[in-house]
């Protein structure tokens, strides 16, 4: 047996670390989706009438849509009537402080390593935690309020900041955008709202942890970040789910708005349950993420480390409307076992002197299937716009696959686009070189893969770069130990 086969087998055999279920009383509505369900969600969240209207409009539009078939992912047809669209921990629906949070829940987050309790928190990281459909606790609220930053759940924003929410909700990803975005607009349960006022540099990293716990539920969170003129914010989301035999749906929408000179850094460490070695179970992660660089010199940067989910389908994108605005996309995606990922980005250059950088690193092992799919569009008035794209795929084992599907559309002669892609396996000479220096084969693989991903990890906020590296090591364990 070749060493590569050995590694891959070990890889496939590795379990999922966050696969526990929290035993907690949950308020779940019966599976199924109709207008009554939407009214129920809206009513339970005590939303203003306009939010309900927005949901119903989206739902009616969704009914006329069909699921996308163009990507290279394969899954059985999803029956949207078997999913429950709302699940909430039963106790104390309104939470004023951490003391009121169900201790069982807090223990869950502890297990996940999330610094929910303020005293234990990593310094400078404010956390909003979403458990199934409900936002459970937001830490550091007071420090943020002092800076004028709003960091709350989206349901709360609907009640407390309706004017802001109404102005921006759906302004980047309209409810008509795509099948899953429409579904999300109809049934979004919770999520995070962030508002950074003019000139404010957010005093700490903001972070949301998502967890799907209840059975047969979907998670449809919605994140909206608005950075006013000259403001800065760095935001990180992390995701886990228990181990279950059925596939669970996660269809989120993330909208970012950056005004003149504003900067938003959005980082994701996604580790949803990927399913078992036979490909049973796991999360369908169908996400629409888009940032709108509305103002001149604004900057939106997406960094993602995608190691989980049975299927990942997401294309965090940037609309570069403001002159001199900057879009970035840094991605590491790992597919092993029977995981599939179809991910990439869209950089739509509309303004003059707009710049974008795309660095995508795909690692495919076992029976993993992975595709980079990206669009770079230089509109006619995108004078002197620049894009550089680098897509590299690393293959471990002879049953995996890696594809690269870039689309490049250029309508301005002064724009410059450069795209490069490579696909290869870990070089035998690299492996041998490390081993001849005393490293075990597994350590050598880990070292080389880490080097391969280095560029991306460097983009993560420092606290999470370490975490991401650890996650990668765990994902490749088996190749590593």
């Amino acid at each position, binding site marked *: 047996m070749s060493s590569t086969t050995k590694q891959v087998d070990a890889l496939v055999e590795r379990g999922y670390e966050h696969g526990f279920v929290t035993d907690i009383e949950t308020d779940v509505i019966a599976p199924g989706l109709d207008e009554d369900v939407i009214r129920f969600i809206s009513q339970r969240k005590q939303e203003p009438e306009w939010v309900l209207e927005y949901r119903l409009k989206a739902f009616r539009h969704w009914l006329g849509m069909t699921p996308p078939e163009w990507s290279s992912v394969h899954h059985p047809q999803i029956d949207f009537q078997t999913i429950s669209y709302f699940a909430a921990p039963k106790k104390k629906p309104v939470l004023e402080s951490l003391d009121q949070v169900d201790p069982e829940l807090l223990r869950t987050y502890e297990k996940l390593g999330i610094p929910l309790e303020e005293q234990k928190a990593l310094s400078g990281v404010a956390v909003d935690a979403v458990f199934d459909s409900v936002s459970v606790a937001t830490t550091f609220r007071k420090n943020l309020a002092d800076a004028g930053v709003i960091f709350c759940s989206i349901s709360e924003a609907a009640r407390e900041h309706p004017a802001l929410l109404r102005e921006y909700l759906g302004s980047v990803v309209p409810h008509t955008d795509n099948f899953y975005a429409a579904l999300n607009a109809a049934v979004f349960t919770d999520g995070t709202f962030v508002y950074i006022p003019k000139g404010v540099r957010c005093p700490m990293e903001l972070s949301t942890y998502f967890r799907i716990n209840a059975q047969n539920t979907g998670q449809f969170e919605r994140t909206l970040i608005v950075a006013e003129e000259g403001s800065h914010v760095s935001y990180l989301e992390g995701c886990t789910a228990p181990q279950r035999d059925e596939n669970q749906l996660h269809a989120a929408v993330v909208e970012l708005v950056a005004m003149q000179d504003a900067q938003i850094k959005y980082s994701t460490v996604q580790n949803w349950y990927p399913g078992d070695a036979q490909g049973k179970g796991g999360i369908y992660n169908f996400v629409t993420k888009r940032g709108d660089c509305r103002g001149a010199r604004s900057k939106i940067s997406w960094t993602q480390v995608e190691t989980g989910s049975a299927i990942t389908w997401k294309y965090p994108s940037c609309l570069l409307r403001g002159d001199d605005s900057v879009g970035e996309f840094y991605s590491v995606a790992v597919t092993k076992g029977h995981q599939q990922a179809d991910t990439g980005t869209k950089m739509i250059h509309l303004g003059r002197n707009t710049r974008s950088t795309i660095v995508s690193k795909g690692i495919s092992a076992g029976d993993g299937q992975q595709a980079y799919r990206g669009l770079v569009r230089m509109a006619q008035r995108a004078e002197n716009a620049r894009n550089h794209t680098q897509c590299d795929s690393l293959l471990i084992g002879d049953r995996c696959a890696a594809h690269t599907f870039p689309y490049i559309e250029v309508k301005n002669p002064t724009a410059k686009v450069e795209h490069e892609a490579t696909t290869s396996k870990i*070089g*035998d*000479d*690299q492996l*041998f*070189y*490390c*081993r*001849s*220096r*005393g*490293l*075990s*084969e597994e*350590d050598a693989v880990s*070292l*080389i893969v*880490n*080097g*391969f*991903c*280095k*560029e991306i990890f460097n983009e993560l906020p420092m606290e999470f770069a370490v975490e991401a590296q650890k996650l990668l090591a765990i994902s490749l364990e088996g190749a590593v130990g």
Partner: protein
Amino acid sequence: MMLSIKNLKAEVEGKEILKGLDLQVGAGEVHAIMGPNGSGKSTLAHILAGRDGYAVTAGEVLFNGESLIELAPEERASRGIFLAFQYPVELPGVNNTHFLKEALNAQRKARGEPELDSVAFLKLIREKLAMVSMQPELLKRPVNAGFSGGEKKRNEILQMALLEPKLAILDETDSGLDIDALKTVSDGVNALRSPDRSVILVTHYQRLLDYIQPDFVHVLAGGKIVRSGDKGLAKELEAKGYGWLSGQDEAA
């Protein structure tokens, strides 16, 4: 005897390269192996370090009494075998310092020695850097990536200084070096000579032996050691060419 090779036969892709090679290297000795291109010099170096793709079909290779043939490359390294590559490999994205520390600690761990922490390691590596006159900047870069030929070779000697092997095999370390670089690299090697460290110099030219004085010189031709002697043999070869041994023109 530190290294004892008896009747070693080896193939690459079904083609026999080594055809019954014998070599004995004692502790503290420096052996030069010379020979025309294609004689099997690099094959021997790679086989000693455990590279895949070579089939040993006969003979034995004992290192301090233990057979090497079944050992993984990293196991050989931990036992004290070091190969300085003719073409050091580039590792994009892998930081040089990080790589060196990982290598050193992996070997220490395998030998049951305590691992060095970052402070101790940095102190150590600074000493070694001075020894091979290497720019400290090169430590911050990815391993060998974008290094000049001389920088790559120096990086090899730095690793040797750091890892303190029992047996160092230098595979054409002199190739592609100018005189200055050759001298720095040789000084590094000479500084590492000790009564319990042996060196095998694999080289095509006599030039290197002006800087690193061997105790023994062997001529490898057609997959066998065809002649052994002291350093006078190298001079003779220099003057007469390899053809002198086989009665033909030099194969190179």
